[in-house]
């Protein structure tokens, strides 16, 4: 069983839940940027949560199935067709040998997920099937999918007709509030600079990929200082340090960047806050132009949000048994 890629879309890659444990040598966790939608897709087709699937940003691929399969499409809202006829998202579907799956234009969200019963069967690299594009390994030949690729699929036992209930589907908005924990090098900002970060409405720029999301808005003011040895002359420079996944850096005090799951693991720009783990999926589904507020929460609030997300997962599993 395989999927033939007829048209690759804009940036489509094989991802699973990621490759933890190698960040100390600069290899990021990778994995689906919107883990919730990826989990829902896998559960819909009877896969393990760790199965690999296809993530596509903005423009989704056109594919053909070589054999009958059970599939599900989740994530961003887009018209989906099989052999030209509309089919629903967030449901498991049966497709036949030779059937073609295609997508229309993005209506809401940014990233769509296609799971196939049996999972994408590429070799594991360092314990994961996720693509790490900068390093050129993992996924399908270490790169985004291209037209002509034939992507192998494992053997599954999915069944059609499962549906994710409406209240367990994410809502996509063009105005979002992203919760962050302040800290790291935030003491380098003046009080006014910190207020600017939290009180402004930021607009997501087109520079928004698996590595990071860049926002436009006002510039932030830094405290004056004597340059620490090795830090660099700009007030936003630090002696190169590790970057948390989700951390917000502000090079030169302009255009904050939220690092995502293919993060560069470290560098010389001060980070001033970190997106909480429960809101990384939300960031993943923002498309350019999305108006974004950063709201400061405590670590305890971040942990409570994480626990609430875990409880939602339990609900999702129950719904898709």
């Amino acid at each position: 069983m395989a999927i033939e890629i007829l048209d690759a879309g804009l940036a489509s890659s094989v991802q699973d839940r990621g490759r933890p444990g190698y960040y100390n040598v600069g290899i990021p966790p990778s994995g689906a940027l919107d883990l919730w939608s990826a989990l829902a897709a896998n559960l819909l087709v009877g896969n393990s949560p760790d199965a690999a699937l296809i993530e596509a940003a903005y423009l989704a691929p056109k594919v053909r199935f070589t054999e009958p399969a059970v599939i599900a499409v989740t994530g961003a809202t887009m018209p989906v067709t099989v052999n030209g006829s509309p089919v629903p998202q967030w449901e498991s579907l049966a497709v036949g040998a030779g059937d073609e799956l295609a997508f229309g234009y993005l209506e809401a969200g940014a990233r769509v997920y296609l799971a196939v019963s049996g999972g994408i069967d590429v070799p594991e690299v360092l314990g994961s099937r996720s693509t790490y594009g900068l390093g050129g390994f993992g996924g399908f030949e270490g790169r985004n999918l291209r037209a002509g690729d034939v992507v192998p699929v494992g053997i599954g036992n999915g069944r059609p007709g499962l549906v994710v209930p409406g209240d367990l589907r994410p809502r996509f908005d063009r105005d979002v509030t992203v919760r962050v924990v302040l800290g790291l090098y935030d003491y380098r900002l003046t009080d006014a600079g910190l207020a600017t970060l939290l009180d402004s409405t930021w607009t997501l720029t087109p520079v928004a990929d698996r590595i990071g999301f860049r926002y436009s808005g006002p510039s932030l003011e830094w405290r004056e200082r004597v340059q620490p040895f090795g830090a660099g002359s700009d007030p936003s420079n630090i002696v190169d340090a590790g970057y948390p996944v989700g951390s917000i850096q502000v090079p030169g005090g302009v255009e904050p960047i939220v690092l995502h799951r293919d993060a560069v693991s470290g560098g010389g720009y001060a980070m001033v806050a970190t997106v909480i783990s429960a809101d990384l999926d939300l960031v993943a589904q923002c498309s350019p132009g999305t108006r974004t507020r950063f709201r400061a929460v405590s670590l305890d609030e971040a942990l409570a949000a994480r626990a609430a997300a875990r409880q939602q997962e339990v609900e999702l599993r129950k719904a898709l048994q």
Partner: protein
Amino acid sequence: MTAPTKSRYSWGGDEHLVVQLAEEMSLAANFTVMAIAKQLEARKIDGVIDICPANASFLVRFDPDRIAPAALEAEVREVEQAVGDTPSLTLQTRIFEVPVWYDDPYTNETAARFRDRHQRPEGNDLEFAAVENGLPSVQAFIEAHSSAPWITSMVGFVAGLPFMFQMVPQERQLEVPKYLRPRTDTPALTVGYGGCFSCIYSVRGAGGYQMFGITPVPIFDPQQKLPDFSEFMVFFRPGDIVKFRPIDGAEYERIRAEVQAGTYRFRQAPVSFSLDEFLADCDAYNARLLEALYGN
């Protein structure tokens, strides 16, 4: 909030603890980071996913479903205390040689292409670095860069990229600013320089460091073809000690051929590094390290 006077603990969301030992770079801060990272690793704390030593700080990536942040912080503080209380720490590590073709045509061509992003329109990055550091010639700069060894103070940015800090007193540290605006291209295996750090670009891509030369030896090998990569695709580890050896174009081609044939091995030796002994007489200590590398 005020600047830290000692280690500063801070949360990077709910999955990261970042500990900043110092705002400025020093061998002492980096050595302490290495020692803490090693001891934390040895504890095999359940719920800890990554321990990432950086230049003067470190990051711990953890799963808060498995370890409470407060419990993690307490354990890290305990290790930091234990390391601080130990009078003469040593780091078990290795020293190896990286051959470098300084002033090579590949990086010079790239430097020429991106001259509009550079501080000094005339000449190349090496000439700029020599002038910046008050050295009489490019040759003198290469001599300063390649004679004393370097310690790998951090691995990261992208897969397997080492940041290296030269093992000399601060007054002998070379310092060079980064490009005014980053390049969109850097040849793979370029030996770069920014601030007080050397790096080797593990893959081709964007970069802002000055470019001094190129090494024929891969440092990141996802296909794991060379014997030194049989266990892992990344060669550099934090704490590795590195000696650069200047080579010419002919030797560069010879080593490339060995790499292509899959026979190249890094010249390397295990060493233990003592910060106290190093600080007491760094030149003598470095000479001993180099004996371990070249003596047999």
